[in-house]
């Protein structure tokens, strides 16, 4: 389950792509994915506001995930 990282999310994980562990079981919803990220990278817990896209569609926490989905984590950025 591949996740593309943008903005501060890329800085937190230290790479522009991240393979989410699927053992013992892959996250089945966006909410579960967020929980996994917070456990593995505690700094995510400080991000109050970031968008997640699944297969290029904005996805709320209730959206279901599948192993081949393309997921993107999109924090807001402010630079100008």
């Amino acid at each position, binding site marked *: 389950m591949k996740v*593309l990282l*943008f*903005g*501060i999310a*890329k*800085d937190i994980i230290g790479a*522009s792509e991240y393979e989410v562990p699927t053992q013992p079981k892959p996250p089945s919803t966006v909410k579960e994915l967020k929980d996994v990220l917070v456990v593995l990278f505690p700094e995510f817990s*400080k*991000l*109050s*506001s*970031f*968008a997640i*896209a699944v297969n*290029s*569609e*904005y996805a709320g926490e209730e959206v279901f995930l599948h192993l081949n989905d393309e997921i*993107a984590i*999109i*924090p*807001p*950025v*402010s*630079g*100008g």
Partner: protein
Amino acid sequence: MNLERYSRQTQLKEFGLEAQEKLSVAKILVIGAGGLGVPALTYLNAMGVGTLGIVDNDVVSLSNLHRQVSYYESEVGEPKVTSLIKKLKVQNSDTKLVAHHTFLTTENALELIAQYDLVLDASDNFPTRYLVNDACVILKRPFVYGALHSFEGQVSVFNYQNGPTYRCIFPTMPNPAEIPNCDENGVLGVVPGIIGSLQALEAVKVITGIGEVLSGKFLLFDGLSQNYQKINFKKVAGNITITALKDSYEFNCAVPQASVSAQQFAELLQSEKIQLLDVRTTEEYHHYHIADSIHIPLSDLESNLEKIDYSKTIYVICQSGIRSQKAIHLITAIKPEVRLVNIEGGINKLKSYALR
């Protein structure tokens, strides 16, 4: 309208004289004359937009020049709006250029934006971005959004023909500690050139009706890989029913946080014995550090608070001045009475003074 001047674009079948005419009567307000505002204004002016307003109250600084390409070395210290309008005028004497020497505030936002057909958000901080959004929703003005982070950029057109808004993708403003803000995070010089130009393109499309406007689509650009992602998103009904601005859009930029410039700090170092807390990683610290500093990486700070003497002022430093701000927020939350001072620009800036 001088037809020869625009002949290379009016000869385009999809554009033509009709689109040129629409540009010539359009009024666009650009918020910010920095990295994004400079290319956006430059191209909108060249292409023949009739009226361009510029909102900015900043002056040119040396560290702007690597990305804000209209400013000259000799203009460091001059108001950006004044300096930019000089160049826009000689490039296109037909444009009506309106200087608004102010920052956008809750007091002036509605009055300013009401005078224009479209807003181009080229600001550099979250409070302004949320203020632009809410004011545009209230006044029913479309706005072209652009924002940067390091090698990345984001572009979208919000509030276009009753379409989704900034709050439909990012509902609430992030907290001070979580995201770099206030022009503190770096950016590769040419990235604002790309994003600001894409914003000018979308502004022209909105005004003239050509092409497919980037509404309900959020473009993510990564310069390191030249990857482009377009995310579809939908309107959240509650976000377009705003009828009044919030009382305040301020956060940490405005929160009084004591700080010294790297130059002032360099002078302090010569004369005084001070308590300096360095919150960089161990690797960065070993590479270069200031003698007698206390080293606690930001990630270990909470569990090492006992290493600090809270009876004395704590000067906090990191590589570029961002993590040191976060450290100050963290310590303040636990020890609100302590005196903390941020060193602006961190080791990077300090070195630039030392090495000059």
